């Protein structure tokens, strides 16, 4: 059966659902297609987000927030603890709940939602429309087809569909963190503190996180840079860490995922096809944060897509470029900066990290914020300091 729409959105994560809600609210006929039976399950995510990042696009709802974080602790490879007493307010989210609510919002705005519908191919037809074809999920019905003049791809880190339109989205091994994470229940977990472990033993080319989901329960996970990964290494490092640091704890929801940590894809728009979220590699290259970027990009893309429909029923694809322009001037710029400094952070040796931690551990925790950690890191190398200064000025 063929479904015809104004706008097809593939992938019902935060980016796709925001795009669907924005386009449907503007009066367009929109479908939101999801591979899995339920969007956001399992949540492949550390679930942390900063106050500014979230509130730029959305009013956070109390039921999404598992904990409010006001301090952080960084632990160096040698075990030196640095308490950061003055962090910007941030939240640990219930991504399953948030993702599912964002789909509901899109449906309320008028979008049609198709769960359990894996799109396996996409193409441009001779009549100018884009067609997406779903795998024959239940073997009884015919393959489902969707056509529309605009196609928004929010199909996540794997984003195979962008390749159907000539994008080379394959990630270099230094542009992916390969992650494993689980939910850990243990009395020692503090509800208002994020803990990070660095170094080649904890997480080669990445970091290990403990993000509290309330008192006594946390999202514990780690990322290994692709170039240093061996089969199953993230899972092995994670389980070793949990067994060592949280013996006899209850471990559930063990999952894995890839996080793009490169540049955002250029261009973000080709003809009537737009890329958003992880599919567009819209993730902060230093900390792997992508929720705020996805929400923002999704809403921009959905609004631009809706606006591109002219009164006569035609579509002006040039309007879609407004999305890329807005993105590039805001979070796009921030991502470019983090990417420019990533190579250095990747190359930082354990002894270098230990030295910085020792310096910082002697300072008053209440006076330490992320900016100070950043400055200490870069001040130790004059050439880098200059580079960082130029980028962030």
């Amino acid at each position, binding site marked *: 059966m063929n479904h015809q729409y104004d706008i097809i959105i593939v992938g019902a994560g935060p980016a796709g659902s925001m795009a669907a809600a924005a386009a449907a609210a503007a009066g367009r006929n929109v479908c939101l297609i999801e591979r899995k039976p339920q969007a956001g399950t399992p949540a492949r995510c550390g679930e942390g987000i900063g106050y500014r990042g979230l509130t730029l696009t959305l009013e956070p709802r109390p039921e999404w927030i598992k904990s409010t974080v006001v301090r952080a602790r960084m632990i160096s490879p040698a075990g030196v603890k640095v308490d950061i007493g003055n962090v910007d307010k941030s939240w640990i989210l219930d991504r399953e709940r948030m993702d599912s609510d964002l789909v509901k919002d899109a449906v309320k705005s008028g979008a049609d939602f198709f769960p359990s519908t894996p799109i*396996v191919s996409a193409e441009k037809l001779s009549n100018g429309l884009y067609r997406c074809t779903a795998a024959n999920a239940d073997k009884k019905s015919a393959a489902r087809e969707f056509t529309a003049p605009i196609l928004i791809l929010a199909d996540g*880190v794997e984003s*195979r569909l962008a390749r159907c339109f000539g994008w080379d989205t394959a990630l270099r091994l230094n542009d*992916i963190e*390969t992650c494993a994470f689980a939910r850990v229940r243990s009395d020692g977990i503090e509800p208002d503190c994020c803990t990070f472990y660095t170094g080649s033993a904890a997480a080669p080319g990445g970091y290990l996180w403990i993000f509290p989901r309330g008192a006594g329960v946390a999202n514990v996970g780690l990322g290994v840079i692709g170039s240093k990964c*061996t089969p*199953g290494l993230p899972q092995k490092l994670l389980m070793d860490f949990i067994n060592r640091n949280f013996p006899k704890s209850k471990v559930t929801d063990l999952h894995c995922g*890839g996080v*793009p940590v490169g540049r955002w894809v250029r261009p973000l728009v080709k003809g009537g096809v737009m890329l958003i979220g992880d599919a567009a590699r819209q993730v902060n290259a230093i900390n792997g944060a992508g929720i705020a970027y996805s929400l923002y990009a999704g809403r921009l893309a959905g609004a631009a897509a809706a606006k591109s429909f002219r009164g006569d029923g035609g579509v002006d694809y040039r309007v879609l470029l407004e999305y890329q322009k807005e993105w590039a001037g805001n979070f796009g710029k921030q991502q470019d900066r983090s990417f420019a400094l990533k190579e250095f952070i990747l190359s930082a040796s354990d002894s270098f990290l230990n030295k910085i931690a020792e310096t910082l551990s002697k300072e008053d925790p209440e006076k330490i914020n992320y900016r100070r950690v950043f400055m200490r890191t870069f001040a130790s190398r004059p050439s880098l300091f200059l580079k960082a200064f130029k980028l962030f000025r």
Partner: protein
Amino acid sequence: MTGIAINHKKCDECGACISVCRKDALVLGEKLEVLADRCVSCGVCVNICPFAALATNGETA
């Protein structure tokens, strides 16, 4: 013979392998599949898998 073996019991369907495949030889439909006509057995996906669900040439994951 090309051969990436998938252990579906270990695979969490996260798609990390797809994101690094230069040949577009992996597809996540109902579950993960290798397209044998595209796969060159380079093994990048095997190394990247967080759960060790993939193996090359006759080895089992």
